[in-house]
């Protein structure tokens, strides 16, 4: 059987709250990273506060509607980012969000590899029928990566975001289980 948690460049891991807080407290200072990852305003939290937050989440234990992974590179075993899934159990569909906090790993295929591994997990382990995501117009690198993974651009909320005096669209992408399966069969040929 295929290893569900191992891609070509990265693997999914569980990191202790201490490790995550130590990384997050650095990543939050990178304004560009925060703006690409989230629409909320940047703010800064202490390492203690962040650790408390991760502690609370790990105490609550596993939930069917929420799955998250930390991500390490295979080569250096370096913790570079996170990936989260929100699952709508009634309608069998899920949303994904991912971020690479270590910026020297941008534009090198790590994000694409994370997403591919995530899709395999979502469609073969969770068995959902579609996977959705949102991103911002000012993140063409992510758009290109998601397209490579097989996501289709399905819609946009025009001028939703205000960044430095300029308005940008929010984009919505999705991939259906049958589209993903067809891609896998194509790969094998």
């Amino acid at each position: 059987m295929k290893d569900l948690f191992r891609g070509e460049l990265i693997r999914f891991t569980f990191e202790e709250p201490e490790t995550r807080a130590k990384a997050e407290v650095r990543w939050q200072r990178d304004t560009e990273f925060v703006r690409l990852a989230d629409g909320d305003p940047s703010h800064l939290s202490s390492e203690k506060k962040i650790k408390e937050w991760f502690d609370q989440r790990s105490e609550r234990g596993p939930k069917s509607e929420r799955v998250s992974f930390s991500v390490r590179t295979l080569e250096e075993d370096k913790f570079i980012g996170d990936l989260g899934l929100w699952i709508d159990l009634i309608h069998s569909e899920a949303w994904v969000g991912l971020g690479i906090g270590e910026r020297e790993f941008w534009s090198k295929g790590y994000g694409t590899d994370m997403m591919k591994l995530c899709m395999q997990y979502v469609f073969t382990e969770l068995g959902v029928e579609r996977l959705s995501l949102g991103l911002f117009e000012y993140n063409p690198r992510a758009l290109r990566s998601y397209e490579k993974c097989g996501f289709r651009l399905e819609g946009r909320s025009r001028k939703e975001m205000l960044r430095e005096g300029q308005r940008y669209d929010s984009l919505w992408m999705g991939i259906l289980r049958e589209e993903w399966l067809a891609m896998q069969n194509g790969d094998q040929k």
Partner: protein
Amino acid sequence: MKDIFTGNLVRLSAFDPEEMSKAFPRWFQNSEYARLLDSAARPMRSSKAALKWMEKEAEEISIENYYFSIRTLAEDKLIGEIGLDVVNWSGRDAFVGLGIGETDYWSKGYGTDVMNVLLRYAFTEINLKRVTLTVFEYNPRAIRSYEKAGFRHEGRLRRLLNREGRRWDELFMGILRQEWLDLNVPMAAEAAVGT
């Protein structure tokens, strides 16, 4: 759209701890009911203890657990309880448990009717792919009712139970979404329900 909580004889109603904590101790005074419902040697509980337990359970609202009380349509009388617990989301499978505590309402089609309502809820509202149940070999009335609702025999744990000096099997029954659709949804309406 159809009222998904109403059948021909009964309806599903909200599980009210006040009301149920009074009904439960009364129902469980009947050892036959207790034995048909549960393999555990169930101690009797006071209303107060039952209320405490139910309020705690009811507080934890979850997407995995659905509990209802059963009322007759004719007299709006509380006659039993039914619950659905999703055990596996990737297989979209749930266990159902059903008890008619008011013995006057046994063998008159109430159980079959409420099971039909619950299956419709499970397949069209929670969008499950299968529903599973277990029943004891010494409960042929329930087995017959589940067969009527469309459940198939899937397996048995041989000689699992000890009742009155002899051993009995526990039976597993199940129904798949497609089987339920074939039984309940005319061809034309099938597209509207989806698969």
